[in-house]
């Protein structure tokens, strides 16, 4: 049984894990990356559309191109990686952790002083959005349909309905259309689209695919393969309105109804999760509530752009490399109801916070809003935003060290939406 020791073990070889591993290595740590699939790159392997890397590389790359640039960087540094290797459990042992894995080579145990969890996210399923009716073949999440289409080269539908206007759903609407399938429409229960505006235009409107807001799929039909779906209008509480049902004949229902950070390993270590992000509560160094355990990328919160994932993961990697047990001096960051969430959720005043990246999403579509940071009621920072939408994440970089924070400080971010143009 293999038994090795590392300064930092990174779990997950997608964009977050790669960036974290590179950054931890560059900070001088002995790093091991663990990946359960055969190839590095994570979900980007199947995201063959372009639009990645605009911030990081100033280019519009496809998913594989973006991932492979990082993979090249990773290999150039000769960082240790094992693929087709699955983490079965993590134990806290002494001052560090023991990661148990299985692979074709058997069981292995890796000792780590610090862990970076870069485990990504998963899609919400049909049952999680309470789709009822029969259980035929032909109900896919967008990611599953993407896997069939882009990795296996198989067409999962000839005529489909897409539920949810999340970006993957929009991307798949275009992708399937290009491959010869008919996309009858994208149905969204919310009154506003969930995806980026550019995707609405370039994926739907360019191909005359209609978007129906405040509509949802209430039932599926078909005993073998899906034969039709029932669509209903919904009210402002997203409850279907009786009498608005219509049947649409199709062979597939493709779901893009949200992503959930994968934190089962984190939870097994006792990491505290934020109910808003469904990811760990972290500080400015991406350290979770468990000392020595760091989180990044979509496992921390679902990002809109991979560029932010890489950037955020690099912070986690460097912090994991520099990790030494020491007493924390935590202060909570509170946010107003107009913010959907903010990461980090706290700061450790025992560490440097002079260049802390803050990520947030607004709860609604706000024109000319104002974000203000107050410490003990005193405003120390503010910024105006011409336009905020929940699908588009925002990033700020702040120097918290100059704000005279203590563990008892009341730190509040307040987003004030303004209705009239200011």
């Amino acid at each position, binding site marked *: 049984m293999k038994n090795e020791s590392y300064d930092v073990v990174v779990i997950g070889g997608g964009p977050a894990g790669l960036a974290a591993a590179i950054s931890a290595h560059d900070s001088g740590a002995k790093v091991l990356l663990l990946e359960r699939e055969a190839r590095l790159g994570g979900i980007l392997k199947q995201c063959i559309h372009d639009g990645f890397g605009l911030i990081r590389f100033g280019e519009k790359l496809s998913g594989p191109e973006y991932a492979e640039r990082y993979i090249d960087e990773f290999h150039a540094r000769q960082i240790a990686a094992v693929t087709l290797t699955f983490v079965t459990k993590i134990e806290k042992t002494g001052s560090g952790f023991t990661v148990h894995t*299985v692979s074709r*080579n*058997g069981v292995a145990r890796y000792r780590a002083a610090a862990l970076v969890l870069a485990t990504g996210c998963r899609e919400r*399923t049909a049952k*999680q959005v309470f789709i*009822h009716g029969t259980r035929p073949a032909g109900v896919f999440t967008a990611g*599953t349909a993407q896997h069939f289409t882009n990795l296996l080269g*198989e067409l999962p539908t000839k005529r489909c309905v897409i539920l949810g206007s999340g970006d993957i759903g929009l991307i798949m609407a275009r992708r399937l259309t290009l491959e*010869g399938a008919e996309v009858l429409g994208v149905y969204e229960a919310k009154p506003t689209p969930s995806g980026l505006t550019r995707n609405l235009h370039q994926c739907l409107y360019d191909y005359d695919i209609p978007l129906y807001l405040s509509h949802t799929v209430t039932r599926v039909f078909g005993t*073998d393969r899906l034969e039709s779906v029932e669509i209903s209008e919904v009210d402002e509480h997203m409850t279907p309105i009786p009498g608005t049902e219509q049947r649409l004949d199709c062979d597939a229902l493709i779901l893009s109804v949200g992503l959930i950070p994968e934190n089962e390993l984190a939870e097994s270590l006792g990491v505290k999760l934020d109910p808003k992000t469904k990811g760990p509560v972290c500080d400015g160094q991406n350290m979770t509530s468990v000392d020595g355990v760091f989180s990044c990328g979509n496992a921390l919160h679902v990002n809109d752009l991979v560029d932010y994932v890489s950037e955020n993961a690099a912070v986690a990697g460097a912090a994991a490399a520099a990790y030494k047990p020491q007493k924390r001096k935590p202060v909570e960051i509170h946010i107003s109801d107009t913010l959907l969430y903010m990461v980090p959720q706290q700061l450790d005043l025992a560490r440097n916070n002079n260049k802390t990246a803050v990520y947030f999403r607004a709860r609604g579509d706000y024109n000319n809003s104002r974000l203000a940071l107050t410490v003990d009621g005193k405003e120390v920072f503010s910024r105006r935003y011409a336009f905020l939408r929940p699908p588009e994440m925002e990033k700020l970089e702040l120097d918290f060290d100059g704000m005279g924070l203590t563990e008892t400080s009341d730190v509040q971010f307040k987003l004030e939406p303004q209705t009239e143009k200011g």
Partner: protein
Amino acid sequence: MNLSKCSKKLKKRFGDAVTLSLENQSVVLRGHLATWAQVIEACQSVAEKNSAIHVVNDITCDEQTETPMRVPGFTDNTVDGAAPDVLVIGGGISGASIARELTKWKLDVLLVEKEADLALQASGRNDGEVHPGIDLGKGSLKHRYIRRANRMFGDVCSELDVEFHRIGQYVLFQNNALKPLIGLYCLWRKYHDGIEDTKLISGSQLRAQEPHLQPGTKFAIWNPSAGVVCPYGLTIAYAENAVQNGAKVSLHTAVLDMDVKNGEICSVKTNRGTIFPKLVINAAGVFAEDVAAMAQDRFFSIHPRRGTNSITDKKTGAFLHSIATVKELSVHGKNHSKGGGTMRTAHGNLLVGPDAVETFEKENTATNRESIATVFKKQKITMPDLSEHDIITYFTGVRAPTFEEDYIIERGRRTTNLIHCAGIQSPGLTTAPAVAEDVAQMAVDFLKEKQTVEQNQAFNPIRKGVPVLRKMSDEQREEMIRKNPDYGVIICRCEEISKGEILDALHAPICVPTVDGIKKRVRPGMGRCQGGFCSPLVTKIIADFLDEPLSAVRKSSPASVITYGKTKQNEGGRDA
């Protein structure tokens, strides 16, 4: 049975719409009513408990649409000309367990199942509870079998390598005033009906064991002999063991008709050929009445009853270690189901349900919002921490009760070479091991009238399932992977299922190379992502195993296409 009293009752309620007559030792109801609920009411009102005279329902109703039994969309001659000693119709828990018990004798046994897999209907769509029998009184067949069968479970499941946990059952009461009455009820059950393990415990004793259950519980009935088993796992294991011992199982094989002469079944027509059995066992679940009719031996009716269960994330498995349900005593109406409950399944999830809804549709397993809402409303009283948001899947099954709400386990009344194992509903999974022994004995007794039937000395009761690597220690796992590296390649991340386990399932005695078939056997896709990540991988493994293109792999039935072939048809051919 007092016929004229029943007639008066019907007349008072339904006027001249329904008539009743005693024919061939059955009470036959005829006429026409507006709703199915009225049909049920009419038939139930004349049904007599523990009577050999059964209600036969020939009432038509406005609501009822004639939906023919779903049959495989193809014909061939796979079983044509087969002349087994015993033909078992139905691959649910009854048919599978009977087939296995029959292989203890030197008999030619053929089991036919119309679906793509075993346990695809009620046997695979129930809660998996191994009942203690607390609600059963003397006189019924259910009661006759329950204790004997309950006690058999440990041995049967260890022989067949099926997950079974005797986790016990609590029935919760919130009203202390009921305690003396329930106490008497338990004593009556214990000493009169032989449910020997039952006892009352206090609310604080309950809380010490199960802190997440209803805090307002004043006392509870505790039945330590209750357990949970994987219901489809047990059915598949029984059938595999039957096959190991020489029985044949033919899937996709629907019984369409029978040739009956002089009270004897001469042949049985299926979509895969005509079979010439010496004896037929009717274990056809919701279609048991239809099979009886084909055999010209219809003396009972089945009225389908739907039940929906929800499964929640394994994380919630920590909330409960047993089976629990709150009891709300109601004075009105009979409730034929156990009223639903919350339990920790054999696989460590929580299961919530089922409800009970009468239906004329024998095969409608579509789910609906209302069922889940009803069940959760009640079960949130049992366990306040329950949340619909933890649901990962839900499913509906259709029970197959008679109007007498008891089993029919007997030789044909008019047709001689026929044994019915009908009306099997809850606790049918529990009673199956004992019922199967008796039905097999009845079959042997029948055949012995015509031929010699010897014991099968070579019978091997041991069936080994696919190894479950996630439950092994690192050292055991290391050894398994050394022997077969595929055990180290994890395909299903949620349930931690390896490629090796999937390939083992494909090489099992009954190979069902479909995504659902694999899911039922080794669980990829049973977890929180519901196959989102692993279903393409499982599809690919099956395609490689079959040496077929990916598009040839099915979810379950032959028409349940997953993909429509390659995106690139490569017409015109340009090389690069």
